[in-house]
């Protein structure tokens, strides 16, 4: 695969609000794996959220205010790596629409052009190779909707997973079906969202996998929360955290 751009000396990391509050280990693992390839990672402390919750809920002005903040904070012309297909999709594909007709549209477009989903960056720019030091393990993979349909990076994520020689990947029957998270959807339509996530949990259980790996912590929060409620034994993990663990032989 030809890299889409030559290896940069440094990149920005956008941690996402969910990782910040619930999955800091995943964020740190994603950062360490980039650094491991000899790239300096900058984490602007003024960053917060991509703005998607308000954008999807009918509050574009509030979404824009938050988005504008990110555009200002990530000001240097270097790649912005995002460990979430959903947040990356928001920043890459929806910022230009959100800023249509605004005077800072050019800045929003330039920002959007620098956004990479984490696994996409690891494969297309850094072309990483991993040596699996972990023991035999059976896992399954959930494709998050926006990583699949907006960022179209699922093949990159799976390419990374397949580099782990001792990991057996058992695919879900409905890998591409939404887990029912959808941000505020999960609390606005709890019963429908609950039915969706319970079907996802059933699908995971049928694989007999010990872990479900995903590239989005929203899905993980949803899926593992529902699994736990039903006393299911599987563990949910972000792809970066899983790889970090495997390359260190834990």
């Amino acid at each position: 695969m030809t890299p889409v751009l030559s290896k940069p000396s440094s990149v920005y990391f956008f941690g996402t609000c969910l990782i910040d509050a619930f999955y800091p280990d995943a964020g740190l693992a994603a950062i360490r794996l980039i650094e491991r390839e000899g790239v300096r990672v900058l984490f602007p402390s003024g960053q917060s959220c991509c703005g998607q919750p308000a954008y999807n809920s009918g509050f574009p002005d509030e979404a824009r205010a938050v988005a504008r903040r990110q555009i200002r904070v990530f000001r240097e012309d270097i790649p912005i790596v995002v460990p979430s297909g959903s947040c990356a999709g928001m920043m890459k594909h929806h910022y230009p629409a959100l800023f249509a007709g605004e005077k800072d549209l050019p800045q929003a477009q330039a920002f959007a052009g620098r956004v990479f989903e984490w696994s996409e960056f690891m494969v297309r720019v850094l072309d990483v190779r991993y040596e699996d030091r972990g023991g035999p393990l059976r896992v399954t993979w959930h494709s998050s909707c926006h990583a699949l349909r907006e960022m179209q990076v699922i093949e990159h994520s799976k390419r990374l997973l397949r580099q782990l020689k001792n990991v057996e990947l058992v695919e879900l029957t409905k890998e591409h079906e939404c887990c029912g998270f959808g941000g505020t959807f999960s609390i606005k339509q709890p019963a429908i969202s609950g039915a969706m996530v319970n079907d996802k949990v059933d699908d995971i259980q049928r694989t007999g996998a010990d872990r479900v790996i995903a590239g989005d912590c929203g899905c993980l929060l949803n899926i593992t929360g529902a699994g736990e409620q039903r006393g299911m034994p599987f563990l949910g993990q972000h792809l970066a955290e899983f790889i970090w663990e495997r390359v260190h032989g834990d």
Partner: protein
Amino acid sequence: MATESFEKRADRALADAQLRKNFAFAMGNFILKRKAVFSDPEETERLRVLGNAIKQRALSRLPELLEQLEAACTRNGIRVHWAETPAVANRIVLEIIESHAATRVVKGKSMVSEEMHLNAFLATHGIEAVETDLGEFIIQLDGETPSHIIVPAIHKNKAQIATIFHEKLPDTPYTEEVAELNAIARRTLRRKFYEAGIGLSGVNFAVAGTGTLCLVENEGNGRMCTTVPPVHIAVMGLEKVVEKLEDLPPLLRLLTGSATGQLVTTYVNLITSPRREGEKDGPNEVHLVILDNGRSRIYQDPQLRQTLQCVRCGTCLNHCPVYTRIGGHAYGFVYPGPIGKILTPQVEGLEKAGELTFASSLCGACEEVCPVKIPIPSLLRRLRDESYSGKPQGIVPGRGCRRNPAERLAWRGWAFLNTHPRVNRMVTALLGMAGDYLPPTGPLGRWMRYRTEPQFAGKSLHRRVGEEGIADE
């Protein structure tokens, strides 16, 4: 029409195990069938781009094409009627029926006639309208409305259909044999075709250049309705017009491939005139009723206009994780599923139907398969914005109906937090310490109906990167 909330109807549907099983099974099959005919992703994408272009081209010249259609139909001997509302359309249909002193109507499948609630209207005037599409026939017997726009009885299984036939049709023994069930419907309907004074149908595409009405179907009942009775009335929404005959092949391929996974339907009817001299069959009169019902209003908004590209294939329903779990009736309106979620609020207004726009996880499965590339998630977002909008201009009825100080304050607070890093870090730290002791009420309570409480990390990523010496910039 919808008297209880969407959430209540959805809850009831979710509790119906048989219904969920029927839908999961049927939709799974449709997905596989579509995949089989659209097996080459690149060719499919080219075709969808073409379908989108054809419909956008037609819409860009909509007023002109509708006039062309009227002129061409009139030249061909088809009488064209314009109806701004369903009430006007019903009145037109009734007048045609009464002018022929007819009392019996046979109907091919038509969603526009559902939009008009035509059967109920005709019944109040003593006119019997019999649905002849097998699925429509089944649900009409049971007093139900369609649960899907192309397979209206998909919520029923074999045993349920056997019971309906046994109970509602005279002298019909109970049988679950599919061939026998088909034969019963066929025998019953065959007589109806010959007795009817009027045949009514929908229209899939109306060709402006030639005045041709295109109608696809698999059972032959459409052809019977449009050729056996002496009068044929076709009803269509005004967005069904396309420019020329050459537009039909790609659109038909997209429609049938998306709808039923067929390369072509069993019957493709192209109707261009009433029976001409020397012809052996066909009706003596053909009428075309063109319904607006809010469409010309939707047309005025360049973004929302994309709703009118829809060819009513129903594939967005088949691929929707929400529709698949609750079925069509839970939506409470004529058009269910993703297309219903964008169309209904625009037609009926946001007060009545705006709730539907929030019943989506915005997963994007609908947009991914739409044969004419309607950006349904973006239109859902737009309608959500409209629900809260305080701006005065706009074409969607019920703009701003959800505006309330509490929610606005909450989102303003959220925006403040996410634009003031220090306050944000303080709140995150606080949640990290005490978040696990939050009471399970409100949104958290709704989350915890199906999931355990989310565990806040003791230290946020912001704090961890600071401690580990990762540079700020």
